[in-house]
């Protein structure tokens, strides 16, 4: 079977999405949007793993994506619970005003 799309295109798309996620984390000040940027980065890495898994015929990459998704679900739930607890204490999710741990 001839590969319809070369693997480099998938990898470059994954790199572009990852860098967009990094830029979101660096430039946004809203804690929830920063969480969403982290989810975007996790997804771009998943795309890389599925690409290699599919092009090499090895299901290990897709197993790893399965576990990454399970951990991402747990991480999103815990992170949003932390955001709710912060909002209850400080009435904001703007991270410049959440600096009680900052030295």
């Amino acid at each position, binding site marked *: 079977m001839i590969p*319809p799309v070369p693997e480099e295109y998938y990898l470059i798309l994954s790199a572009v999405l990852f860098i967009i*996620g990094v830029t979101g984390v*660096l430039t946004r000040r809203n804690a929830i949007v920063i969480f969403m940027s982290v*989810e975007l980065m996790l997804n771009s890495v998943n795309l890389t793993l599925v690409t290699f898994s599919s092009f090499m*015929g090895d299901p290990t990459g897709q197993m790893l994506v399965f576990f990454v998704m399970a951990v991402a679900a*747990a991480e999103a739930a815990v992170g949003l619970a932390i955001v709710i*607890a912060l909002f209850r204490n400080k009435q904001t999710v*703007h991270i410049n005003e959440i600096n009680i741990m900052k030295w």
Partner: protein
Amino acid sequence: MNFELIFFSIVSAVAVISAIMMITRPNPVMSVLYLIVNFFCLAVLYLTLHAQFIAIIQILVYAGAIMVLFLFVIMLLNLGEEKHYHEGGNRYSKLVAIGLSALALLEIIAGIVLVPKSVQPYPPAVIEMGTVEGIGKVLFTSYLFPFEITSMLLLAAMVGVIVLAKKKFD
């Protein structure tokens, strides 16, 4: 220019544009909706890679569960537009962040393009690998123990979320 390449180009363009819109909208609800569009595009790309199970899980878990959780929290906290969207720190800090990110992107792309190919494309067994049957066979034999440990992880996350988010009774 074959059909698959055109399809890939359209889907990846939608994915990149929705990701850029996601990090530039001041309103977090719009960010969530654009991120859902991005996740659907990634699910379509998984289908083109013959990873059907991962594509379904992507839509069910990410677009279905995690994004609903995000929307729920945003609406629970009643967040509107960011008031300090254009403020914060040094005025050049965002430009520096974008410049450094672009530099890292160029570096990654150079690494992908310049390194010679080492994998053989599409071995014969690849079509059956990503189906529910293929994934299930591997998941319940070689990866049974990590799969069971995942249930402990989800239980711990559930207990932790309840402890973090409940009102303090004192």
